[in-house]
Each structure stands twice: as structure tokens, then as C-alpha cells.
């Protein structure tokens, strides 16, 4: 009996050539053990109403923190490194254990 | 032609000997250019393969034919031998290495016996160096012999006419330089001494 090896590739490339898309490495949020929680009240920008900080946005290695008031974190791709929590000048971000479920 | 009966050679083969910088390779190439002008279908010329060093003995090879030439090996059994520098003669040892039916052309003031070259079927001897110097063909004190020797080559071999050689020289050198080269070649054409075996 012939083993089914799956479908035939359907693109017309003769050279390996990628096109851009978010999530190339999958849902990298799944890599996370700790996740960041931003305290609305503690965030410098939210507190003062002036756009003057964005250290979390600047130091995020993934580019998943928005430059908004307050900043929002895309947890689908946040790998949970904790740099934002470490660099937040007002300590408004805490890293919380993922539930495990 | 230089071919002798019984020596069924398809191509006329020439070896040019000189020292690096004297113009043996250029002389061979000028004959090749002239042959092209004369409509030869088979023309190949190459230096002896390998690294060349100024002053060291060099050789150039030339094959001519009215038919296309299909071989590129180095010439070992020439019809014509041209020696641009007489000081090479003791090293070259032409008498033991080559067939006596060769035509030999030497830049020298002496005669075949003095040069130990008696025995070759046909010889042409001319004082190329003096003529080169007299016509201002020197670079950094070294006489350039490539064009004057062509006068002797044309005279001895009957392969190429003087007009095509002159055109080749004009194509290669411009203006007054061409004129000096042409003058030297013509002087040598007229002054070459020819010795033929009886």
C-alpha cells in the first residue's frame, strides 16, 4: 500500500524567498513562564498624562508593547522576559506566574 | 616553403628565442598579425608556457598554415628558428637539438662558422642590435629587437610580404615610433646576409 506523504508543495518558487508575516516562530506567547501586568495607576505616562516615558516600549526585545497610554502588551507574542518590569522607572510592571492551565 | 620532401608537415612551425624584454613574443605576434592580413586561416602563436622573468631566456612559438590549425602543443620540431640574442646560442645548442633542414635566423655580426651554426640548410644573419640602436629602438638602455628582426624573417622565409609586416607594425606602434620601427625593419631586410648549404 502506498504511504500518504501529504500534499504536494504548491508555490512557484525556484529560490527560497520568504515574505514577511507576524508570528513566523508561532505563538511565542507560549514560551512564557511569567507574564507582565501593567499597573495603570503606577505607569508614569498614565499618572502624569504626558507622553514622556515609554521605557517598556523601548526596551522590549519583541516589539510587543504599544506606545499608548497606558502601554498595552500583546500577550500572544510576549515571551515573558521581564525586561519591561526591570526597566520600568516607576516599577509599574510586575511579572506574574502563568497559571499552567 | 621550409618543408622538405619526406617531412610531411601540415604547418610551418617557428621558434623565437630571446631574453625577457627583447621582444621575441611581440615579434611572433607581429608575424601572426601580418599573416592574418594575408588571409592565412591557420595562425597560432604563444609564449613558452609558464612564469616569465625579465632577462631570463624566453621562447615564443608560431604556427602558420593556409588551413586552420588544430594543435596547440609547444613546437619541438621547427622549420624556422629565430635567435634574437646571440649570447643565447651556447645555451640553445641548436646544432644538436634541431633538424639541419631548419632555416636559422640570428642577430649577429659573425658568420655561420664562427657561430658554430654551419650545417643548417639556410641561414640569415644580420646585425640587428646595431640597427635597433641606430634607429632609437631602446627602452631603458636595452635594444628592442622585435621589429628589425622581422626584416630578416621576411627575407629568409618567403612566408609573409613586407607590406603586411609594415601594416602590422603600424597597427601596433603609432606615429614616429612606427616610422623608426619600419625603417629598422627595412634596413635589416636589405642587409641580411644569407648563407645556403650547397
Amino acid at each position: 500500500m502506498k504511504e500518504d506523504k501529504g500534499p504536494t508543495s504548491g508555490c512557484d518558487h525556484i529560490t527560497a524567498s520568504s515574505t514577511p508575516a507576524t508570528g513566523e516562530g508561532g505563538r511565542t506567547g507560549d514560551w512564557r513562564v511569567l507574564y507582565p501586568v501593567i499597573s495603570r495607576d503606577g505607569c508614569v505616562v498614565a499618572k502624569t498624562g504626558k507622553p514622556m516615558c515609554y521605557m517598556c516600549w523601548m526596551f522590549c526585545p519583541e516589539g510587543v508593547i504599544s506606545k499608548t497610554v497606558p502601554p498595552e502588551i500583546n500577550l500572544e507574542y510576549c515571551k515573558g522576559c521581564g525586561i519591561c518590569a526591570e526597566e520600568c522607572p516607576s516599577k509599574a510592571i510586575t511579572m506574574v506566574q502563568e497559571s499552567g492551565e | 616553403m621550409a618543408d622538405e620532401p619526406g617531412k610531411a608537415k601540415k604547418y610551418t612551425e617557428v621558434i623565437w628565442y630571446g631574453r625577457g624584454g627583447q621582444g621575441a613574443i611581440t615579434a611572433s605576434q607581429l608575424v601572426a598579425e601580418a599573416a592574418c592580413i594575408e588571409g592565412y586561416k591557420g595562425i597560432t602563436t604563444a609564449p613558452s608556457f609558464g612564469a616569465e622573468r625579465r632577462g631570463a631566456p624566453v621562447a615564443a612559438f608560431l604556427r602558420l598554415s593556409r588551413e586552420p590549425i588544430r594543435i596547440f602543443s609547444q613546437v619541438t620540431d621547427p622549420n624556422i628558428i629565430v635567435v634574437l640574442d646571440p649570447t643565447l646560442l651556447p645555451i640553445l645548442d641548436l646544432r644538436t637539438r634541431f633538424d639541419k633542414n631548419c632555416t636559422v635566423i640570428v642577430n649577429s655580426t659573425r658568420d655561420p662558422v664562427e657561430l658554430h651554426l654551419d650545417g643548417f640548410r639556410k641561414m640569415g644573419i644580420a646585425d640587428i642590435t646595431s640597427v635597433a640602436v641606430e634607429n632609437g629602438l631602446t627602452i631603458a638602455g636595452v635594444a628592442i629587437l622585435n621589429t628589425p628582426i622581422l626584416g630578416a624573417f621576411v627575407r629568409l622565409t618567403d612566408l609573409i610580404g613586407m607590406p603586411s609586416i609594415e601594416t602590422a607594425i603600424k597597427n601596433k606602434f603609432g606615429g614616429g615610433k612606427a616610422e623608426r620601427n619600419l625603417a629598422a625593419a627595412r634596413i635589416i631586410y636589405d642587409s641580411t646576409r644569407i648563407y645556403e648549404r650547397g
Partner: protein
Amino acid sequence: MSIEKKGDCMTCAEKVLIMTGNHAAAYAVKLCDVQVISAYPITPQSPVVEKLMEFVESGEMKAEYVAVESEHSAITVCISASVVGARVFTASCANGLALMHEMLHWAAGTRLPIVMAIPNRAVAAPWNILNDQQDSISQRDTGWMQIYCRNNQEILDTVIQAYRIAETVMAPVMVCYDGYVLSHTLMPVNMPDEKLVREYLPPYRPHTVLDPKSPRNINPVTLADPRMNAEGVLCHGYMELRSLLQKSLLGSVSVVAEAGREFGRIFGREYGIYDSYRTEDADLLMVSIGSLASEAMDTVDNMRAAGMKIGVMHLRLYRPFPAEVIAKAVRETGCRGVAVLEKNVSYGYEGAVCSDLKAALFDHGVDVFAHSYILGLGGRNVSVSDIEEALNRSYGYLEKKGPDRIKGQEWINCRV
């Protein structure tokens, strides 16, 4: 085609110039409007790039010349300039070509129509700067096409054809010619008309371009198995991409034939996959690549005059190996044996061309013997009589039957 047809162009008046094989390659590159040249000097290739540099500096040729610090960089420059969309050229040989080896795979794997001239030279050790074909033969498995030339006219014409072939197949091409033997020998060469070359060779149109307007990541890590892109289309795995290269190469024999035919139509010198000389009614065939096949024509004339029925077959196209075409051609001569003379060895076995030819003959049921002769390594002079010696040895096997026809490879004019 045969060499005798030279200069018989019916459609154009070509100028005849006396030049070396290296300069013939350089003039062809100029005629092809190459846009980027990158090379590193190596004997006996240097005059090719010196001449090109002259063309570029004098403004005769509009091209970027990148004078790199190694052959590895030379081929890399060609690869990336080609991906940007430029027509590119390089030249190398011997140890320089060996240094390029890694990048030869990159060039073929990226499907870039790079053309490289190779004045074949021996590979060290020991040091040797003279001719044999070990250098290009050692690169036969890199995905490059290889075409061998017998004289300077063929070098010039083949470089022009190589661009047309490469840009049709989307694979790189090596144009190989014997170092010194052709690279440094001057002979008459017909210079094609540049307008006709442009008609023959349309501008290069890349298939995949590096361009900020459409950001692509070219040659990233590619998995063994196919993988979905963001639009849900299943894209190739490594093996599929490699298989496509192989398919294109195998299918390119007809492209080479078409390029040679069309060249003949426009310039009056037709080229095929192979060339034959006095092969009709031959009992023995001399098979070779490069200038040996030219010299063998003189040998065969002599041997024919002595009553021996021998012909010459020049394999112009060596990669892809035109197995079917060659096997058919050998069969049609009705010969009983083949002597393959070559300037390379697959060490531990025999001449590489001989092995490939044997496989082709076996596959297509052509029942003749094939003997391997090695000669001319490291510039050892090959005379008409050396070729005659090899052919005489095989001629003695024509009456033998079965296993008696088989013999091991032999080295000609080798004194150990």
C-alpha cells in the same frame, strides 16, 4: 560545428582579430553588456580581468568592477549583485576555483545565471600553474553547467551563448578552456557584431529580486519538509528546491542545443551538444573535452591515412551530462570501442568523463568498450603522437570480446 566553418558568416561582416583565449573571453563579456564584474587574479586567468578592467576604465564598457581580496569574495560579489538584478561575470581556475567551492553551491542553489570563465589549470599540491582540467572537473557536482571549448573562437562564442543559456535555465555556467594552451595562445577570432549580440541575448530578467519595495528574505533556513506561508500556500522544503534545480539542469540539454542553433542562424557558426570529426564508419572513437579534441583531429587524420578507422567526439557540454544524446551518437557511429582521453582523474578510480560516458552507454544499451586515458596533467606537453599512442592501445582491443575488452585506466607519457 567544425572549426573549418570559421569566418563563413553569411548574415554579417565580422572583423577578424588575432587574440588569446583570455581576451576572447573578455571581448565576449563586453559584447554581452555585463554590468558587474568581480574577480581575483590567478595565473593563467589574469589577462581576462586585466582586459576587462581596461574596458571599464576606458569607458568602453559600462560596468561596476569590484577588485576583491579573494576568489571566495569574487563569487560572493557576483551572487549578491545577481540577486539585485545585474548581469555578472567572474573568472578563476585551479586553487582559486577550489576556494570558491562553497559559494558555487550558493550560486546554483539561488538559481543565479552567473557566467564564469575558467582557463583550466592544475590544482596544487605540488604547485603547478600549467594546464589540466582537474579544477573544473572537481566542481562538477555543484549544480553549475559546464561547457568546454576547443579554440579561441569557441571561447568567445560560448561565453555569449552561456549568458543566454544561464538566463533561460536559471543556473550558472562555467565556460572552460585549457589554460595557456588556449588562454595564452593567439589565433584569429571573428568578432561578432554587437547589435546582433543584443538581438541574440535579451537583457537579464531576474526571477527573484532583492528590492526594498518588496522585502523578501532570500535563502533563509529551509526545512526538510514543505511549510505553509502566511497565505496558506504550501511552499517547498529543501528537497523540493534541490529537485527543481536538478530538473532544470536535466532539461537544459535542449536549451544548450537551441542556443547553439540560434547562434548559428545569426552568426553563421552553429554549435551543438557535441562535435564529431570523421566519426562515420569509425571502429574506435576518441572522446574528450577541450583542446585535446581539437588536437586529436590531426592524430586521427594521420591514423586514418594509415588505414585505421578512428573518429573524434568532443563533448562540448559536460554538465548536465547529455547521456542520451551522447549514447545515441556513439551508437550511430557503429563503433566497437571508445577511448576517453582526459586531463583529470577522479582519484581512486579513473577519468571522470570516462565514468560518466560508461554510465550513459550502459543505460542506453550501447555495447562498446570504454577505456580511460589520463594525459597532460600539470602542463605535460601533449603531442599528436601521445594521442596516437593511447588510441593505438585501445585499437588493439577491437577484436576482443566480452570481459577481455575491459582494461583499467592508463596514464600516457608518465614515467613511473
